[in-house]
Each structure stands twice: as structure tokens, then as C-alpha cells.
């Protein structure tokens, strides 16, 4: 009788974990498909029209149409990559997106390299009607699920330390680069055009205090050679080596946090 009960519990636990694992994998697979679809769209959609967008770089808002759907894209064409004395390059945005994909984070909207009117740049899917973090703070708008929101920001902080691109910590308050999709409060981080500073340290004032299990595992699993293979077109040797150093530092930091606080 007792054995039967134990067996039932084991079977239930197995089925539950299996179903959970399946749903998670499906969700990840679904996200990946969505990203792939968007990348294809950005590469192939027809340029219907364009207009200048504000900002320090040379950015355009592009009206795109692939015959099935019309969407907006954000085209950045300034390429002041290092060793330029002031960094501002569309290439770092693509590098951040590739890294986001390797970590399965889904915090960076899909972006591809594309040539428009003879000029190469990055074309990123435009998040329509987003709420900027600075405005959210000023207007005191509470997210519907504050815990989930806070946890995502903690993961974003890890990612920003990795890419050395702070949005809302340390000395920076760049409200317009952290945005929320108003429909589902999905957090998106845009504009990495000054990222990947060749710093061997993490960002002062942006201390990592928490990291989701999924991100920790993915970060620890992620091999340096995989990063090099994906990002070598966008980063120079120094930027790459400092990125890998920061990755190592973050992993060490997380291990200390786990030892202190538990998983």
C-alpha cells in the first residue's frame, strides 16, 4: 500500500516536472521562432518610407511592409566604433542582441544589420507605444506584478554589467532606453550604442544582488568560444577580452551570492 502511494507520488512528480519542462522548452522555442521570424522580416521587408528620429546619433524611423504586415523599424547608421574617442556605433546594438540570444534573456528587441539607401546600419523592430522607465517613475505607475518586474530588472542589471551599458544605475539615468510594452509590461532594453567599454571591472554603483536561476545557469553554461563566434564581427579584441573578464567576475559574484543567500 505504502509502496503504491510512493510510486504514485513519483509518477506524479515525474509527470509534473516533464510537463513543466516541456512548457518551458516550448516557450523558449516559441520565443526563438518569434525572434527568427522578426529577423527575417527586418531583413526582407520593403522600405515604404522613412523619417528622421531625434537623438545624438543618426537615426531613422522606417515604415516597413512585407506584404503581410506593416511595422516600424528603428534604423541607426552612425558607426563610431572604438578606437573613436567618443563611442556610438550601431554595431554594439547587434552585439548586445546576439549576447541576449545566447543567454536566452529576450530583453533586447530583434535587430539585424541592413543596408538602406546605400548606408549600412542596424534595423531594430520598434516597440510601439512603449512606456519609458523615466516616465513610469515620474508618474508613479506601479507595474501589475511588482515582484516579476523587480526580478526582471535584477536580471537586466546582470546583463548591463556584462555589456557595460548601464541604464538606471550608477551615474546614469537614461530613462528612454529602458521601456515597457504597455500591453503586457514586458521589459525591453534598447540602445547599446555605447556598450562594451573595455573595462575589466563591473559597473560602479550597479552592484549585482540577485540573478534568476535561469540566467545564472545560462551564464555559467555559456562558453567563451560561443561568445567569440557570435560577437567577433562586432567587437574588437580588447572589447572581447574585457567582456569575457566581466563574465568571469559576474559568475564569481553569483557564486558568492549563492553561498551567502542560497539558491
Amino acid at each position, binding site marked *: 500500500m505504502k509502496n503504491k502511494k510512493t510510486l504514485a507520488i513519483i509518477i506524479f512528480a515525474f509527470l509534473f516536472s516533464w510537463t513543466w519542462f516541456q512548457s518551458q522548452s516550448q516557450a523558449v522555442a516559441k520565443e526563438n521562432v518569434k525572434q527568427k521570424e522578426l529577423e527575417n522580416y527586418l531583413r526582407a521587408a520593403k522600405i515604404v518610407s522613412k523619417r528622421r528620429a*531625434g*537623438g*545624438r546619433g*543618426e537615426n531613422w524611423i522606417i515604415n516597413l511592409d512585407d506584404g503581410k504586415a506593416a511595422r516600424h523599424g528603428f534604423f541607426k547608421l*552612425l*558607426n*563610431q566604433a572604438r*578606437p*573613436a*574617442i*567618443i*563611442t*556610438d556605433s550601431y554595431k554594439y546594438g547587434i552585439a548586445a542582441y546576439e549576447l541576449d540570444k545566447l543567454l536566452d534573456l529576450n530583453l533586447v528587441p530583434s535587430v539585424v544589420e541592413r543596408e538602406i539607401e546605400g548606408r549600412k546600419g542596424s534595423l531594430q523592430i520598434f516597440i510601439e507605444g512603449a512606456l519609458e522607465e523615466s*516616465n513610469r517613475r*515620474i*508618474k508613479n505607475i506601479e507595474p501589475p506584478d511588482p515582484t516579476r518586474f523587480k526580478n526582471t530588472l535584477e536580471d537586466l542589471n546582470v546583463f548591463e554589467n556584462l555589456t*557595460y551599458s548601464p541604464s538606471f544605475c550608477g*551615474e546614469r*539615468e*537614461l530613462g*528612454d532606453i529602458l521601456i515597457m510594452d504597455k500591453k503586457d509590461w514586458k521589459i525591453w532594453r534598447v540602445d547599446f550604442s*555605447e556598450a562594451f*567599454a573595455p*573595462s575589466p571591472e563591473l*559597473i560602479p554603483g550597479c552592484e549585482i544582488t540577485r540573478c534568476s536561476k535561469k540566467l545564472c545557469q545560462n551564464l555559467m553554461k555559456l562558453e567563451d568560444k560561443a561568445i567569440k563566434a557570435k560577437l567577433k564581427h562586432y567587437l574588437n579584441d580588447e572589447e572581447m577580452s574585457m567582456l569575457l573578464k566581466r563574465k568571469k567576475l559576474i559568475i564569481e559574484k553569483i557564486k558568492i551570492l549563492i553561498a551567502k543567500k542560497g539558491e
Partner: protein
Amino acid sequence: MKNDAIRIRMRKTKTILILAVFIIASLAHLYAADTQCIWTGVEKIVAVGDLHGDYKAFTKILKGTGLIDGKLHWTGGKTHLVQIGDVLDRGDYAREILDLMMKLEKEAEEAGGKVHMLLGNHEEVNITGLIFNRREEEFTTRQFVSFLPDGYREKQVKKFRKKIGNNPTNKTGLASSLDSDLMPFWENMLKESRTDRKHPARIEYIKNFNKIYGKWLLKRNVVIKINDIILVHGGISEKFSKWELKKINNRLRIELEDLRRAAMYLSRPRIPEYQRQIVYEPNGPYWYRDFYTWDEEDFKENVDRILKNLEAEYMVIAHTQRVIETKEDMQLFQGRIWVIDTGISELYRKHMKGRLSALIIDKGKFDVWGLNNEK
């Protein structure tokens, strides 16, 4: 033998020490010199927005507001003239504007007045040499040629004329380099300079611009306060409103000087980019644009707080063109923010409904020159 070696080593150390002291002293002069940035008791202020190389428009405004006479001499007495930045790019005659500002600065000083040239984002991109990376239409060929050193420019012209077997003209100075037959030659040189970081013409432009104008600009401010009015190119964000004006100006000068040197000598900046606090910051004083995008009702308190932090009543900004018909069109947040970029330069007047203007603040009363098509 051993003593000789010690003596040589000591002499070397001494030379290095003297050199170090000399370098520190010369830099300290620039860094520590607290350029005045606050004035009180000023009766009349005339503020002019983005000029983008339109020398003619600028002189017309100065004459119209009674600050200069027909011979371009200061007649403004004790008035403070504030040009709020973005003299450079998009137009042809930035050099002429800067030369005039330098001259008027001295004349106004003698008359008890003041000429303030503030730094804008276009001054930044020229000091750092990044103008070569910007869109083609930002950087006109005429501006490029005008800031090349005379010797280099004349040598290039001679070489070109010899190659095509053409006789030199009777003109002298910059004018002799700007004959129409030379323009394709300069255009090509500018095109090559854009893609080649080490192109001699690009290096000559950056060095010469910085040796004369960059150095002068770096002794100017990015933000000033006259009476209870803050004047700044882009605006002051909440973060920077908590800084003293002196700190904003000094920090900017330090960072920009570091980049000026790096641009001139193709070297690495000494301040690592992740330690910069103000140059090229989107929320920095000459890139900031939030006042234009903020909803007036939602953000009124923010503007009030920023001005309170700055101990000021008003802020005068530019950086983003506004189409104006009336005095009210230049005001934001119930007249606490005044926008003076009205599209003064020809490019804007031709294509974007721009118009000449100047904001006149006389004994605390705000008025606008240029709304009635004054001559």
C-alpha cells in the same frame, strides 16, 4: 664612472620633474581657472539661438538689436550678448562668426558689456573631430576648407593648379582657395577624409581648428546664469541641476580638453570613456531634449524642481528648432522655459519655416526681436 652614471640619471630625473611640473602647471591653468559663470545686476540680455554657419543672419540680428554698427563694432554698451551654442556645421561661415565673436568679446568688455559664447553639441563634434563621422550634409565643404591652416591650404591649391596647368588667381587668403574650379578638388578631399582617420587633411583640420578655435571655446562655458535666468544650449536635467554651475562647466572643460588632445594627436583619451560624466551624455547640458518632449501638465513639477535646484526662475534653451509666429510659441511650461532655436540659419529658413530672432530681456521683461520682420 659610477658617479657619472648617477649624475646622468639625476639630470634625467630633474629634466623629467621640470617637464612634469610644467605640464601640470599649464593644464592646471586651464582646469582650475574658474571661468566666471554667474552674473547678477545685469540690466539687458540679448540671447541668440543656433546659427549653423549663417554669418549674414547673425550680423543682421546684431545690427537689428543694436549691438553692432555698420562696421561691425560693438555698440551694445553694458548689454550681455549670449550666443547659446551651435555656431558650427550645416552652413558655410562658422569661422567668420567665431572671428566676429572673438572681436566683439574684447570690444564689449571695454564698454562694460559682455559677449558669452556657450558650447553646443556642434562645437563638441568639431573639437573632438567627430564631425568627419557625421552625415555629409552636416559638414559643408566651405567650412572644411575655411578651418584648414593657411599654409597647408595654399600648398594644396598650388599643387592642384600645377597639375591641371592652371594659372593662380589674384585673390589672396581664404578667398583664393575657394574659386569654383577648386571646389570638386576640396569635395573629394573631404570625402576621403571622412573614411580615413589618418588622412592628412583631416588631421590638419582637427589640429588647426583646435589650436585656435577649440582652445578659445574651451575657455567658455556650457551653462551660465545671469540674474535669475539659466542659459544653456540643450537644458539642465534633474541630475545636473543638483550640481553647481561651476562644477558642470569645469567638469565639461576637463573632459573636452582630454578629448581635444586625443583628437589632435590621434592618441587615447586619458579619462576612460566609462569615467566620463558629461561629454556626449544624452542628459548632458548640450544634448538634453526632455523639455521638448515632456507633457507640460505631467512634468510641471519636474521643471519647478530643476529651476529650484538651480536657484533660478527661468531657463533659456535651444538645440531643437521651433517654428514660431508669436512670442508665446517660444515658451514652454508657462514661460519658465524659453526656446530660442527658431531656425535662424538659411537652411532652416528655406526649408523648415525658420526665422531670424533674438530674445531680449530688458529689466526682467522678456521680448522677442524678429517677429515683425524687422530690418
